[in-house]
């Protein structure tokens, strides 16, 4: 199967594994433009968007050489119904400045997914219309899916439990 038309994208492209044709590694400035390009070439749906915290597993082999590895990764699985194929976009997000562009203007369906990623991993999405916590209570402190978020420190965590979390 032919490669996906990538337009002006010059970043790293890896061959896909099971069920995915290609894995693309844009940097943060290329990310939005690349997804816009993919949307224009027929990827109608954003099937999934999630984040991964690679704090304790930095030297991952699934990232090819040439990609500057950062702590966080936002993983987007795009789906083309017309071409019956999938492509995965993995963008590296640094710990010091965990901000990426929102895909909301391209795929409105990413609204809840980006909110979930923000809620659980603390990655912020520029341009998201309503970036609030979605699963955790509004006043929760910390982002539970981060690897340095301690589990089991407070036996039962309710909103009004006093003391540090």
């Amino acid at each position: 199967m032919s490669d996906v038309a990538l337009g002006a994208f010059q970043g790293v492209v890896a061959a896909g594994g099971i069920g995915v044709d290609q894995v693309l590694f844009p940097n943060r400035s290329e990310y939005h433009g690349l997804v816009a390009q993919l949307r224009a070439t027929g990827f109608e749906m954003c099937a999934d968007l999630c984040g991964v915290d690679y704090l304790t597993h930095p030297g991952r082999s699934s990232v090819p050489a040439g990609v500057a590895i950062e702590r966080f990764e936002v993983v987007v699985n795009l789906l083309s119904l017309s071409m019956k194929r999938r492509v995965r976009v993995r963008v590296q997000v640094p710990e010091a400045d965990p901000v990426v562009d929102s895909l909301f203007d391209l795929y409105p369906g990413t609204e809840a997914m980006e909110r979930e990623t923000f809620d659980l991993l603390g990655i912020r999405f520029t341009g998201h219309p309503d970036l609030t916590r979605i699963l955790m209570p509004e006043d929760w402190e910390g982002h539970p899916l981060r690897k340095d978020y301690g589990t089991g420190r407070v036996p039962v965590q309710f909103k009004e439990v006093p003391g540090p979390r």
Partner: protein
Amino acid sequence: MSSYDETELPARIIERPEWSTKETSEGAQELFERDETSREQIFREAGSVLRMPEGPVLDASQIDVERSDDETMIINMGPQHPSTHGVLRLMLELDGEVVLRTKSVIGYLHTGMEKQAEELTYVQGCTNVTRMDYLSPLHNELVFSLATEALIGVEMPERATWIRMLMCELNRMSSHLMWMATNGMDLGSTSMMIYGFREREMILSFFEKTTGLRMNNNYIRPGGVAADLPDGWEDDVAVICETILARTYEYDELLTGQPIFRDRTEGVGGLSAEEALALSVTGPLLRSTGVPWDLRRVQPYLAYDQVEFDVIVGTYGDNFDRYAIRLAEIRESIRIVRQILDKMPAGPYRVQDAKVTPPPRGRIDTSMEALIHHFKIFTEGFKVPEGEVYVPVESPRGEIGCYLVSDGSSKPYRMHIRGPSFVNLQVLPTLLRGGLMSDAVACISSVDPVMGEVDR
């Protein structure tokens, strides 16, 4: 609640006064009155989240952003409302009985299952994921097992694949029957509720016989299935198929042609294909808009390329289409199950790799290696090679996907479940906008959200 006596406040609120928001301290997740909302935000909410890149789907002139708060009312529906199918909370802005804006507030059932998965081995992982979508537990187990197996790179024995397919199709039937029951209930047909539960119980009894549990089966595991099918399973399944197929025609008489039911569902909660695609909607919701997208057909997994079935699509994307699709999918599942009955191959029901599959009980007493393998698998678990994979399957609610990252240890480094209910729920503002309050219940039901999966 503005006149707080400071001594009554929790200590952490005194330290950080900005945490003390109004009443429930969940401020920003809520739907706000128009005075407190920016014009742009009202526009977005009134038009759902839809702002399509290629041209406006929504006519801007239809949105009345100038309406004052005096004319409208924001009410809460749920999280304890029986028609929200769990703990879904909807905030509805109403003008009389017409719904203007909707916002769903979720998270009441959030139990951190994705975090939990990082603490469990791959062997234990299925007990966790099976509790997400508790109406189709076997699909959750399937997607997790397929993702794990994709990373390990093992080849499934043929019988394991076909057993999985049989159980998943039965599960699809039971899930849709449950939906028929609750949807009937939401629309006032209590007899449909009783019939739906009655038929579902037949399937759950078979699950209990096969897996030991009615729900949360932990039956499909990485490396195969937990046990072979019980003796005489062919007869049980044949009876299930025959009975339920006959009963679906009773549902036709009870609901499909019934004028009240049709009035309540036809033309209500309309959705277009463009809207559905933009909102990443999958499953019967997407098919109701006329998009023939069923992963069993377009990206076959298991052995779905070896059985015959039709992908049911609708035309109008309304509640009736979604009802008709689910009813027809029960019949298609019966068709698949009958083919599986004929084609079920013999052979092992799990991988014959001692590193992945625990040895049979009998061998533990006689073989030292078997004892060691048994001990290692159930204490440490098996190691999965480093890598990442995304595996989607078609659950009764749509595409359920598992994004699995392994760091080479025996526990997932990250497991993310793309829950179809979670994504499909975003469609509610679109479905409800401009409709009547009484139809809101029908629309929520037709999305078929399972809150265990929405909140995970």
